[in-house]
């Protein structure tokens, strides 16, 4: 299938020499919900703005439904954008804002009226049609902005940090709503965000950016469970990193020497050999804690001291300082109130489990 959006070897730098986007390839399929994720300055917004036509690439091409649109101005592109701070026209009411593009481009009055009504109904704002933007709440302005973008029936909807200006509760509600809207309309959504939880919750596919390049692209589960680099593991979810040296390699596992302790970790790649320096990556919820006494005879444990306990409601996150001063976080799920008894106290000597499976291994320096 031909991708609806095809960003092909695009590079863009800004005056002052900053390379915002560096030779990026990105294909988005029709109907997909893709999130461009990354810290500020990683180039995600620039890619979105190039697809919209507000910036033009220094080199490379952008195709929309197979047509080269690299040189087309924004008003000739079949995409619409929901702006970060909504960009509603302050001198027009809600109805005029939504109908603006249709009205000015010469669509018949009755048709504009019908389409605007439908768009406002879609975002459940029919009763606010005659209000001024200044009279609306943040969430309502967001919906107007959505309606205004959707009324033109674009091939692709671009969303630039659409939820970042909303407060936490509203943001959660809008996440669900946007997802429903995407399923209902079936059009392609490309959303830029710096919030990994937002990306994980909403996207079919996450494109994680790093310094103008794509660090990894895949489903949220792929990025979470199989991050390609430590950068991805750090950005998506919480990760613990423990460094060690390879002591022995086998067909499907390796022995890693961490601070004198030998840990067995599943690994089936063949690019690793004895003496390599590696970084072990463990998610807090995939590890577990044991008290010092109950550790005897158990393998894959690292000793440390509890330094902080953070209550999260559904779980308790325990920060353990390992013997080499590395912080290590372990989540204890609170499935019933009796689980509180398993939570250690600050200063207690404990051991953390490095699971044989579910532990990722990155080579930091070959031996």
């Amino acid at each position, binding site marked *: 299938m031909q991708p609806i959006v095809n960003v092909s070897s695009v590079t863009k730098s800004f*005056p002052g020499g900053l390379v915002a986007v560096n030779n990026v390839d990105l294909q988005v399929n029709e109907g997909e919900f893709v999130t461009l994720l990354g810290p500020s300055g990683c180039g995600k917004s620039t890619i979105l703005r190039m697809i*919209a*036509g*507000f910036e033009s690439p220094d080199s490379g091409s952008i195709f929309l439904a197979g047509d080269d649109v690299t040189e087309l*101005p*924004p*008003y*000739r592109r079949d*995409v*619409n*954008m929901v*702006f*970060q*701070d909504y*960009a*509603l*026209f*302050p*001198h027009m009411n809600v109805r005029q804002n939504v109908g*603006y*593009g249709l009205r*000015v*481009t010469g669509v018949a009055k009755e048709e504009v009226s019908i389409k605007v009504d439908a768009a406002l109904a879609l975002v459940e704002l029919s009763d606010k049609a005659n209000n*001024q933007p*200044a009279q609306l709440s943040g969430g309502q302005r967001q919906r107007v902005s959505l309606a*205004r*973008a959707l009324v*033109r029936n674009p091939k692709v909807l671009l969303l630039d940090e659409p939820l970042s200006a909303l407060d936490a509760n509203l943001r959660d509600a809008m996440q669900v709503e946007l997802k429903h809207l995407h399923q209902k309309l079936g059009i392609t959504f490309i959303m830029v965000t710096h919030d990994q939880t937002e990306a994980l919750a909403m996207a079919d596919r996450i494109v994680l950016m790093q310094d103008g390049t794509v660090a990894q692209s895949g489903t949220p589960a792929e990025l979470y469970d199989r991050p390609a680099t430590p950068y991805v593991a750090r950005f998506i979810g919480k990760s613990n990193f423990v460094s060690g040296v390879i002591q022995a390699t086998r067909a499907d596992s390796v022995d890693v020497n961490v601070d004198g302790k030998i840990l067995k970790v599943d690994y089936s790649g063949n690019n690793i050999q004895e003496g390599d320096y590696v970084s072990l990556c463990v998610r807090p919820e995939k590890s577990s804690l044991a008290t010092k006494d109950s550790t005897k005879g158990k393998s894959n444990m690292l000793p440390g001291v509890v330094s902080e306990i953070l209550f999260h409601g559904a779980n308790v996150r325990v920060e353990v300082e390992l013997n080499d001063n590395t912080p290590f976080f372990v989540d204890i799920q609170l499935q019933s109130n009796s689980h509180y008894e398993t939570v250690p106290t600050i200063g207690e000597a404990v051991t953390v489990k490095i699971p044989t499976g579910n532990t990722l291994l990155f080579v930091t320096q070959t031996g």
Partner: protein
Amino acid sequence: MKLATRNKLTSAGILSVPVIWTLVFLFVPYAIIFTYSFYLKQFPTFVPAFQFGNYLLIFNDPQYLQVLLRTAKIALTVAVSALVLAYPLAYFLVFKVQSKKTRLILYMAVIVPLWVSYLLRAYTWKTILGSQGVLNSFLVMIGILEEPSDIFLYNQFSMVVTLTYIFVPFMVMPIYAALEKIPRNLVEASKDLGVGPFRTFLSVTLPLSTPGIVAGATFTYCLTFGDFIASFLVGGPNGLMVANVITSQFGAALNWPLGSALAIVMLVVVLIIISLSDRIERSGKLDLA
């Protein structure tokens, strides 16, 4: 002393100086002029009275009405000319000049003449437009004119040119401020919605910059309406403005009552313009918050 009383006394103390200043130097003179405007002229000076003869004279004697209308016409022409010159300049500065430094330098170039004496700036145009002036010499040199012409100076044209030049910064500043306040993403949003640059300008940029246009037009119109030096320097007989007539009533003609009545009429015109422009700005729903 109670805290509330003390606070009241403090604010009264702070306010007293500007209040007294305004009273003594603004309201009292206005009141005096207003009183004079009902006095009766009686050779060689005037006597206190309460009668509307001065006002009736202004609106019945074509001579005065004509000056009022001419002043209004020149003020309007100056406001429009200044707008035509200032808008593209302000637009260019805000939207087209990329470098902040260049923008500042160009903006300052517009503002700097305000620091030069008004008289000097008006006088400059005398040397440019005069029969021995720069413009004439240039036109003769390139052969458009056979000999220097006197059509450029001492008429309403030279008045409009001079006053436009002098007051154009007052048009540039508010328009620049208004354009700068327009969020760029509104222009982007318009284009994103399929609207080309020209229609975007008409539907988004221009309406959102009207507060600046209204403010600039009010400044230039009111400043021109009360001006008398330009007429004095480059106006000639056809360039007489209300303010010139008022000066002469208080001077050579020695008719303070009539001069006062004219001044009050002028004040009323300016106040009407200002309240109109205020109303336009308020009604515009141009809240960019």
